[in-house]
């Protein structure tokens, strides 16, 4: 199967460099990366966390997270949030006719990207 994807410039450059360094084709490298990611999604869906292990201590060294894996993890455990009826009605009305972001919020997003 042939898949196409658009990725940030630096990520694409990293794929090219790593494939070269490991002596793999770009397809082989992306295939392995996808295999790992699919496995990661499966593990998170089972309620597990992904960590790297320090072989000297057998202790977790760091946790692996991506926006997708974090989102899946959150979605698995929603907590009930009790609200007055008026608040829920107001939230629903706001959701159904959501305003565009104000210039203040847009400005904050722009500043956060610098």
């Amino acid at each position, binding site marked *: 199967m042939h898949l196409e994807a658009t990725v940030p410039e630096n990520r694409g450059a990293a794929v090219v460099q790593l494939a070269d360094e490991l002596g793999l084709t770009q397809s082989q490298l992306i295939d392995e990366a996808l295999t790992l990611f699919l496995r990661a999604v499966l593990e998170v869906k089972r309620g597990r966390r992904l960590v790297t292990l320090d072989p000297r201590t057998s202790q977790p060294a760091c946790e692996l997270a991506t926006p*997708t894996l974090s*989102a899946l993890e959150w979605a698995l455990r929603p907590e009930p949030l009790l609200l*007055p009826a008026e608040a*829920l009605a107001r939230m629903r009305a706001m959701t159904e006719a959501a305003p565009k972001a*104000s210039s203040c919020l847009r400005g904050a997003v722009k500043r956060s990207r610098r």
Partner: protein
Amino acid sequence: MIDGESRYATVPIEAGDAASGFSCGKPPLDDYFKRHAIRNDRAGISRAYVLRRAEADPPELPAVLGFHTLSMAVAEPAPIARLFEAKLPKDPMPVALIGHLAIDVRAQGRRLGEALLMDALRRIVDAAAIVGCTGIIVDANDDAAERFYMKYDLVTVAAETWPHRMFLPIATARSAFSDP
């Protein structure tokens, strides 16, 4: 996923962060960070993200500049409201909850609160691309917090309860990140 990595991007909390000396000046938040943030994160109850001092930052700043926590929640009518069920919307609303958001006192006045809130919103907008989420809820624990969140389009929907619950529709948040 939304592009645009910030200098102020957060990272998942690590075990050593609890002992970093973080203090925002509000005892309940400080206590949460020291005693519960890592435990709740490990238990999958809520994810904690910390903002660390960058190399370019002055060395007198603390190692952890701030943190926020995120979880998914389902907004439902309180038991008393169920008595009037016929008049209520019946479907629960899936929402993302920004449970805590705090900046160390030594790092305040640098607009890091804004940077931290934008980081939380960006993560939620990314998450909403793959899970159901109608909006974002935050709890404003005092008037200053409520004024802060209001600047960024959050609206108080439950002023009669404490803390004041504030809401931002996901479509509004998404529109803020849609600008190139």
